[in-house]
């Protein structure tokens, strides 16, 4: 072989084969994961589910919510008034398509983005990353479900503050579920002990 191809020929062939094998190996790792665009992760603030809930309840109009999950997940349940972006972050072409279809609501508003758990990295279409006021929902939709939509269990509160907190939580949950807030038992009121409750009125008092 060496006679036929020469030293350089063998090197050339080996280098190419190794490179090709490396690419093949890399391809088994799967398609490269996309990350949140660099600029965005530096600019995003985080908003907690409870805070987002209060924005919605207050009826603020200065923000828009974008759901970055699969359309099927979106149908099963989403944050109220969220817009599903579907495949808009799969590739740049999809992103451009989405903005052409005016999928994104008014982009001058604050944008709250969320994924399933808040931990995924997605690449955002350029139209979204240009927005300077990006928020990510902490905990993603899972966090939303846990904190806002989950049924509130009363009992075990040790003071009035906790009771009020839970009542607020229940009210929020009911709002999003479209129900009436259930009145739950509050702390058992300790009977007020009167000093002289069982004594005849005039016993101690002189006249």
């Amino acid at each position, binding site marked *: 072989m060496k006679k*036929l*191809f020469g030293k350089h*020929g063998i090197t050339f*062939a080996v280098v*190419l*084969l190794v*490179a*090709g*094998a*490396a*690419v*093949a*190996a*890399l*391809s*088994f*790792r799967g398609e*490269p*994961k*996309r*990350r949140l*665009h*660099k600029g965005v992760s530096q600019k995003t603030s985080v908003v907690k589910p409870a805070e987002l809930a209060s924005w919605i309840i207050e009826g603020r109009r200065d923000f828009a919510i974008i759901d970055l999950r699969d359309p099927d997940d979106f149908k099963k349940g989403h944050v109220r008034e969220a817009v599903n972006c579907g495949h808009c972050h799969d*590739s*740049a*072409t999809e992103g451009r398509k989405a903005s052409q279809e005016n999928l994104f609501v008014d982009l001058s508003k604050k944008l709250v983005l969320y994924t399933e758990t808040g931990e995924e990295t997605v*690449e955002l279409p350029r139209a979204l990353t240009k927005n300077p006021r990006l928020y990510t929902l902490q905990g993603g939709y899972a966090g939303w479900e846990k904190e806002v939509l989950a049924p509130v269990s009363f009992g075990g509160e040790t003071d009035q503050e906790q009771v009020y907190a839970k009542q607020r939580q229940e009210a929020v949950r009911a709002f999003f579920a479209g129900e009436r807030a259930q009145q739950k038992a509050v702390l058992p009121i300790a009977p007020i002990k009167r000093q002289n409750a069982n004594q005849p009125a005039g016993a101690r008092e002189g006249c």
Partner: protein
Amino acid sequence: MEPLAPISKIAEWGPNGLIVAAGLLGVGFGFVLERAGFGNAKTLAGQWYGYNFAVLRVMFTAIVVAMVGLFGLHYLGVVDLSLVYVNETFIWPQLVGGLIFGMGFAIGQYCPGTAVVACATGKIDAMVFMGGFFLGLILFFFSYDGLEKFYLSGDMGRVLVPDWLGIPAGVVVFLVVAIALGAFALTHVLDRRFAAKQLHRSPRAESRGEVAS
């Protein structure tokens, strides 16, 4: 690691950047083509008659190098392949057009890129080839209406060979590398066979692209 490339689409150069890039890339392209001997019809003809496999070697080496580089960078996350322009597949016109083009190539011993380079270095037959090419284009324009249906047939969109075969792209890359190396080996074996025929050739044979480099 987020993709850095294609730079013009990610960093947003603007039109002037692309013009400069196109020009510079063209200079590199033309320079290398000429260096490879492709500005010379005899080099190109050697492919068909077995005395100079430069065309096959240069073309496949270039394809393999660029392919390994491109897909390697893609899997490393540096290049976003979805942003790279991939020729759309119109299978019937490309098949028939390829056959016709191949015939024209064997008759004229040039293809547009190499003809341009050859013109730049003064080869008159290349200029005549380009003249013919111009004429052929005009003929095509005016016969297009009849061809339109065929021209648009077999539209498969942007499809890559690995998608069509159902194999991961990296494996296809490796297979292509292996096939190319096999083809190169074959050309060397054929070189030896033809070498005997060339013993009687003139000393200046190599200088005219008549034998392999």
